[in-house]
Each structure stands twice: as C-alpha cells, then as structure tokens.
C-alpha cells in the first residue's frame, strides 16, 4: 500500500475536515487485514486504540566508513505497511557486532507491532530485557526508538521536535565543534574562523593519560594546555574541556580548582562514571561547571546524579541512552533540578539529527556536540552524499532544524553499500609507561 493512500491531503483541512481521523491511525478493522504478520505479545489488547500501521520488517546495517573504523555505524530501518519507513541509529563504539545482534534479538518485539506506540515498546524492550539495559541493550533500543519516532513524525506529518513541543528557539540548536588545534597560532586562527562563521563554542581535551596520583609536571602541563585554549580562543568563546574520565577524583580535583579563573563552560567527565559520590567530591571543589553522562543508559542511570545535585550539565547520548524517548526524559528530569543538557554526539548522522530534534524541544538545552572540526572532513562528505544536505554542519553557530516530517531526511540502503561492515574493532587501548591499563 502506498503512503499516499494513508495520508489524506491537508488542503482545506480547516473546520470541516479537522475532526476526521487519519485513515492509518484509526483502530484496526475487526476482520483480518489480509497481511500475514506476526502478532507480538500484548499487541492485540490495543486493537481499540492503536493504529492500523504495522511494522513489516526490521533491517539492521553495520556501516564502516573505513575498513578499520572503531565505530561502524549501526543503522536500524523499520518498514511499515503504510509505505513509510523509519531510520534510527544505535552505534556503539567498539561493540558494533554486539549491538547488531541485540537489535536482531528484539525482532519478536518489533515486527508486526504498531510503530506509533513508541513509549510502550520502549518499556517492553527495557523492562522485558529483565537485567535492564547496559550500553549494548541501550544502543539497540536507541536505534529502534529513533526509527519509530521517524515513522511517527511522518505519519503525523510533523517534524519530531514539533511533536515534542518545540522548537524553543526557531533559529536552530546551538552547537560546538572540536578545537583541533594545539598551538597558539592555530588557536588564534580557529578563533578568527569562529568569528567569521558565528561559532560560539568549542571543546578540547587534555593531553596524555593520567595515573591515580599525578606529578607536578603532568598537572602543570594540563593546566597550561587549558590556559592556552583560553588565551588562543579569546575571552568571548565558550570552552568545554573533556577530561574523558582519564583522571582520578584526586587529580581532577586539583585541575578543576586550578582552572577556575578560566571560566570554562564545563569540564566533562572529570572521573569515570560509575561512582556518583566520587564525581560529587570533585564538583564540590570548584566553581567550574561539571558535565557528564555520555556513557549512561536510560533516565534511571541519571537519577542519582540529579538527586545529589552533583553536576550542572548532563550529556546523555541519544545512541546509547535509549533514543529520543529516553533523552527527552533525562532532559525533563534535569529541568526539575535546574540542570542543563548538552548531549554527546560522536557517532553517525542519524543519531546526530535525532538529537537535534530533542535539543530543540528542551528549555534547559545548552549546547550540542558534534565530533567534527570547523572544516568538514571525509566523514562529513559521506554524510552529505547519503542525505543530500550537509548534516550536522552549523550555520551561524547553530544546527538548522530539519523541516520535513519525522527526523527530516531520506536515506537509501543502496547508498550505504559503498561502506560495507568491516567488523567490530576495539576503541583505543592505551597503557601507562609501566604497562598498566590507562583510561583513554
């Protein structure tokens, strides 16, 4: 069946037409629909209130931009009997194969089900996974969730951010690139480019790997690196510094205090994510705002951080946290405690675009990451080749809002074939000088 048959024209949808139900969204007819699809457990209960739309197939793609990529994209495509398809992303760095298998494990939950019921399916995938979700299950749910929202928006004829009550700022979503510059000269050049392009924020990391306790020279080097960032980028650009959980709470505490005068926008992951009290210890020692959350799955995992009032900014990633549904909930929870949202995005373009939709609807949204530089590289060119527009490139310091219904793009399976799955590759494995394992 063609999409056109489901979507009635909106012309003249004024007073006379507006009480008619969308033909695809009406309850199921009593009889057999004629299509032979599995009926997932629990689905029949919703005959009186669900829609006629059913997911007819679920496909999952591993896509490696380079054969040795550590983060092959994991894309999920849901096909429906309404002629509408949805795309989502569940890329998990270093664990592509596991996520692909996990998406396939959810096949019985998804094929034959009603894609409009995204919250219901989210609950079922999470709760009925029994052990709850870590990053693998979280990323699989994320991919499926985004694809359902894409379908929902297309059927409801609105961009996802409008379904979520946005945009709060119709000019778009403020973003930042990574500052791939180390020398003073490079940083000054970057500042000039930023001013020309209207970019207002950058993020950078701290160099090297850190032991539990650090030497004077190592600490000095890290502090000087951050001072150089502020000097080079000037006083009017916001700077985030990613510690990437390389530092212990002990070392991070010293650093966050040293750099107070730099007025950084945030320091990210000053220690690993498992121990909220350790994070709190660091946060209590500095006026520098603390950001964390890219490795957390589901709103549940942010609860303690929010309840303890530890962090100022949450950075949950739409490809791991549980998609649009979960990222929106984290934002709602953070809002009640005055915490801002700056979601992480370092995977593919689908998750990037999906996160822009949620950002646009969050009043407590601060800034959106993309792991790109001011100059587009090979990755950004491929994204443009796939989607037909420069996805996740800022205009005037903001990511423009997609205007089409759903997530707002078309993608063909054919275009992905140029970048076949190169298999799972580990993320960086680094070691200290004595051979012991280091955080990267």
């Amino acid at each position, binding site marked *: 069946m063609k999409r056109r048959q489901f979507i009635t024209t*909106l012309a003249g949808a004024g*007073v006379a037409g*507006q*009480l008619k139900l*969308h033909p695809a*969204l*009406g*309850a199921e007819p009593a009889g057999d629909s004629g299509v032979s699809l599995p009926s997932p457990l629990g689905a029949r209960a*919703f*005959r*009186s*209130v*669900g829609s006629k739309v059913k997911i007819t197939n679920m496909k999952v793609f591993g896509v490696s931009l380079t054969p040795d990529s550590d983060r092959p994209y994991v894309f999920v495509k849901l096909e429906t009997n309404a002629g509408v398809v949805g795309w989502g992303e569940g890329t998990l760095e270093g664990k592509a194969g596991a996520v692909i298998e996990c998406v396939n494990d959810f096949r019985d939950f998804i094929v034959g089900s009603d894609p*409009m*019921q995204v*919250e*219901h399916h*989210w*609950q079922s995938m999470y709760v009925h996974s029994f052990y709850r979700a870590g990053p693998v299950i979280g990323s699989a749910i994320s991919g499926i969730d985004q694809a359902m929202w894409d379908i*929902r928006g297309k059927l*409801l*004829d*609105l961009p996802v951010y409008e*379904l*979520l*009550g*946005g*945009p*709060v*700022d*119709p*000019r778009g979503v403020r973003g930042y690139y990574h500052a791939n510059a180390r020398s003073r000269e490079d940083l000054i050049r970057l500042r000039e480019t930023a001013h020309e392009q209207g970019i207002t924020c950058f993020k950078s990391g701290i160099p090297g790997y850190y032991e539990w306790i650090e030497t004077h020279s190592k600490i000095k080097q890290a502090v000087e690196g951050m001072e150089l960032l502020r000097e080079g980028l000037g006083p009017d650009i*916001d700077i985030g510094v990613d510690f990437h959980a390389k530092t212990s709470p002990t070392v991070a505490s010293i650093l966050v205090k040293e750099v107070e005068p730099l*007025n950084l*926008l*945030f320091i990210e992951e000053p220690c690993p994510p498992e121990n909220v009290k350790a994070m709190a210890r660091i*946060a*209590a020692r*500095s*006026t520098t*705002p603390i950001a964390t959350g890219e490795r957390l799955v589901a709103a*549940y995992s*942010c*609860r303690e951080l*929010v*309840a303890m*009032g530890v962090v*100022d900014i949450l950075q949950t990633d739409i490809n791991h946290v549980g998609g649009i549904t979960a990222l929106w*909930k984290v934002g*709602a*929870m953070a809002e*009640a*405690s*005055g*915490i*801002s949202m700056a979601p992480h995005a370092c995977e593919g373009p689908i998750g990037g675009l999906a996160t822009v939709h949620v950002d646009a609807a*969050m*009043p407590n*949204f*601060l800034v959106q990451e993309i792991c790109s530089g001011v100059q587009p590289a090979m990755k950004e060119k491929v994204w443009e080749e796939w989607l037909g527009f420069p996805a996740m490139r800022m205009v005037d310091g903001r990511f423009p809002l997609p205007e089409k219904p759903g997530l707002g793009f078309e993608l063909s399976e054919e275009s992905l074939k140029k970048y076949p799955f190169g298999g799972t590759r580990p993320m960086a494995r680094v070691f200290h000088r004595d051979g012991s394992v280091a955080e990267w």
Partner: protein
Amino acid sequence: MPQALKSKRFTSLLQDRRARVSEQTQANRTDSYGAARSEKLKVSGIEHFPVKEPVSGRRYSVVKVLTEDGFVGFGEGGPATSREFAAAGELLIGLPATASEVARKRLAEIPSLKAAVNTALLDIVGRFSKAPIYQVLGGPTRFKARGMTPLIGESNESLIEALNVARNAGFRAFMVPLPTVAARNQGRAFVLAARKRLEQLREAGGEESDFVLDGAGVLSPGDASSLASEFERFHLLWFDEPCQLTNLSPIRKIAAETVTPIGFGRFVSNAGVFQDLLREQLIDILRPSLAGNGISEIRKMAALSETYYVAVAPHHDGGPIGTAAALHLAASLPNFFVQQIPRPAAEADRRMRAELAGVAAERVEDGYAILPTGPGLGISVNEEALKKYRDSGV
C-alpha cells in the same frame, strides 16, 4: 573546616555554577519567535469560557484557541480572571500551536491558564495530525485507564449511598473524605471514626472496591501519622495529602513510620517539589493537579518519578474536557496508575457535563475509563453549553 561551613560553601558554589550555565540555556535566551518560521498552525485568537456547575458550584475555565489556518482546540483549567485571560491571549497570538514549550515559558507568570492552553494547543496538533493526543505524545501505553471518583457526603450513610451510585456508574476505586476534623491532634476517637467509615464502605462495596483516604492537607502530622499506621492492614490504595506540604520534616516522620502509601501533589505546581519528595523517598504516588499543570508539565513530572518507581495519578476536580485531557495523558504515561474523575451528586451537574462534552467523555466500565479515539481530545465540545453554564461571577 566545620561541616556546616563546608556544606554552605558547596551550596553557594553550586548555585553560582548553575546560574552561570543556566544563563545560556535555551529558556533564558531571548524568545526569537518574532518572525516565526512556520506558517502553519499560528495562533490567531483565543476565547475564554468561565463555567460553573449549577448545584455543586464547581468552577473551571475552558479556553478555545483558534489558528490562522482554521484549526480550533479546547482546553480546561482552573478558574481564571478575564484579565489573566486577556494577558495570555496577547502572549500567544502568532505562536505556532506546536510550540507548547514556548507557550509554557511565556505563560509562566499566568499559572491559572497554563493547563488550559497546553491542552488546547495539543488538541490543535492532534486535529492537524488527525490523531488522538496520546498518539502525538508517544502512543498508547495502555488501552484503558483506571478511574477513581471522590465520594461526596457528610455521614457514613450518605457515603455508602454515594458509593453504590458510583459503583453502578462503573467505578471500583473511591476517594473518601475524613470524618469532620474538629481540632488538632484529636486522638483515638477520631482514628476509630475514620476506621469505622472505611470498614463500612468496604463492607458495602465488597472486596473489589478500593479506597483512597483524602486527608485534604488538614490534619496535623501527629494525626496523619496515627491514621497512616492504623490503615496499614486495611490496604488503602493510598493516603492522600495526609498533612500540609509546608516542609519535609513532618513528612519524613510519617513516611518513615508507615507502609501505607502516601500521595501528595494537588497543591504543587513545581516539579522541584516532587524532586525533593522523591529524592528522600517520601512519596508513593504523585498527585499533580491537572488544572494547575497541564499535560506537558505532568509528563515531565512523571518522567522524574518513573526513575523512582513511583506512579502518577493526576488530581482532577474540574470538568469533562479536563477528564478527556487526563485520559490522553494517562494513555501516554508508562507510570500512570489511576485518574480521578469527579462525579457530581446532582443530576443537573451531571447533565451539564454531558452537555459540554458528550456522555461518552467520562464513561467508566468495570473500573476503567474508556480512552477517546478521535483526533485531538477526541470529544466534541458544545459551545452553546459553554455559554449556557457561564460563570456569571467572572
């Protein structure tokens, strides 16, 4: 450093940091909707219908929002003045009906209209999308919604009569008022009177009837604590507003002592208050007022309480348009438990509700309300009836 000073420093540092970051968030930037990019669904006008039930005197307001492209949406909230209403109109004209987060921010200073406007905007979005509001929000998580109705009466006999009437109307869960509260700390006689009231009602209603005890925020913490402990083996659904929510210390005591579930929220209009109650495990069911918060706001409160494994049962003491909104909300929430649905004692009041939104809007069968299935709110609002029952006091 003394502990007190340490925590003071921490608090002030935290506030300082939060302030710095929050200055840059979307909500605190200048609203840039001057020249909205979207040409569709722009709000072109608002009408206000204050209404009043003839016998009970229950008052609420209904808002009608119109768009330039001919869409209409209705929403209900608590009583509002015509001045508040005019101010809200000015704030909303030209805004796309989809931008409910912006409406929420603009109406922050007019809390009485937040809920009504939010529902009306979602009604418009649903009508545009040709789908029920719960489909816009994330799809149905349930196909029917448990209902609960407050019983009205002074004596136990009148409450039993009300119970029988409400049972015949399909309800299986009931909210019961306290015996008259004569003084603070009333002792054993009061506790026994409350117990007798609930036992008589259970006997009349049978095992499948369930009860919420309505403390209405009038008891002293001492009395609340005694009652909560007395009812532990009676298995109330919950004890609602056992005492005033002025600060957390008396509530800590009650919550720590009793396993009777505790509900709070009809006087709360800020998710931060729920955050405090949840953080300290002082609440078993969130009772945000539908009239004071609206669908979108309560969805955010529910997202918060979900992470504490705590359910939501919105407080509702308004009319049938509010009930319809509540059912869409209920359908959308994974952690919904029950919807309070007022059922006036007087036939004239019930007739008014049916005239406003149709008899189906508040239909309950075997304990569950039937979800609307039409676009938007899924009810047809009768404007003639809105005029007929106009609250002349506004």
